[in-house]
């Protein structure tokens, strides 16, 4: 799995790490069950703080793309399909666009609810 971070970017490094994994899942480069490198190893490799990597991993766990198991490290979940990763990517874009437009959280949620009820 290819991880890439750009320290000059305004996007937090942890989010960039999460985006790398999301992209790999979306492109089908990794399959469910695949293990991610240990946070310590990846942090050394990229030259970032280990907590930064853990923040990225935590984010992926909340999205249901990876599971973190004590002693066994991080692994891609069984439900992490390319479609799911692409959907997450689009949700992120929608949220970013809504912020750019100056929409509030409630306004965006109302839009999504309206779409769900339609």
């Amino acid at each position, binding site marked *: 799995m290819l*991880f890439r*971070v750009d320290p000059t970017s305004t996007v937090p490094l942890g989010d960039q790490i999460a985006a790398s994994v999301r992209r790999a899942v979306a492109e089908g*480069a990794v399959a469910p069950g695949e293990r991610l490198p240990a946070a310590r190893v990846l942090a050394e490799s*990229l030259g970032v703080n280990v907590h930064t990597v853990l923040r990225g991993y935590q984010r992926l766990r909340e999205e249901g793309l990876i599971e973190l198991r004590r002693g066994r490290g991080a692994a891609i979940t069984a439900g992490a399909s390319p479609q799911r990763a692409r959907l997450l990517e689009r949700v992120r874009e929608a949220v970013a666009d809504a912020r750019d437009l100056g929409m509030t959280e409630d306004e965006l949620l109302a839009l999504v609810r309206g779409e769900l009820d339609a």
Partner: protein
Amino acid sequence: MTSKNLGRATLAALPFVLALLIDLTLYAAVEDRLPDRLAVHFDAGGTADGYTGSTAYLLYAVLALLALGALWAFIAVSGKLHGRAHRWFTGGGFGVAAFLGYLLVAVLFVNVDAPEGGPADGFPLRHIAVALGAAAVAGALGLLLTRLVPVPEDPRDGDSAVRERITLADGEVASWARGVGAWWAPIAVLVFLAAGVTVGREQSWFVGAPLLLLALVTATFCRPHVTVDRRGLTVSGLLPRPRVRVPLERMEGADSRPVNALAEFGGWGYRIRPERSGVITRSGEAIVISLRNGREFAVTVRDSATGAALLNTLLDRQRAGG
């Protein structure tokens, strides 16, 4: 079968056929002077302690040489051996055929004119030495003969101009990591562990302890992972050490190509060969790094194309003065 393959198979089987013909001729020459029961097994001192009928002996000899000849011909054609490995394999066949052919005849000749109880002077052990000498001479001859048939060449593409790259922005840091699952590694650990404990308890812990150490090292490498980053390529196990690292400074370029564990590396695990070394868990796709000293380092890993492309990108960046 192509004519090239036919040539290779013929050359590989040739020594066994020759040994068979020579043995049969010599058997026919001394047949009348052989006892019904041949002494065919001898103890360390050369005294006969096993016997078999002369017809059965002939049958065994013919079958053994034919089977080995067929095996050698088969591997020469379908064993995927290239270049030097193929030459040594065929040459080795000449050595094996000479060794076996000589011993089979030597056993016949010590039985000539022997009484039923076995040859009086047993089996002089110098025959073993002579057989080894014959094997060395025949092997060398076989190596020379392999120059007559075209040897399959290594299918290697080392053209750095067409090596893949990954587009990286200035200042962007990239790292590629991938697990290398080896299904047989846990089995190997158990085997080493069992062997270490058994040998240690039954024989000596001087032999058992190194086996246990081997089990421990293999255990940490049960699920190794490969990392490609600004430092180079690293293969590491569960713990930070031991690990295998090839720094970028030692690399010329990287390719993704299929490797054959047996033909190119002579087996599985951490392999060191005259021209290449590598961490080989299976045959199949691998990152193959051309080193500056002319050697190669290979790691069998899936999605090797991405890993190799990142290495080439990082090498470009380093050459550009990064």
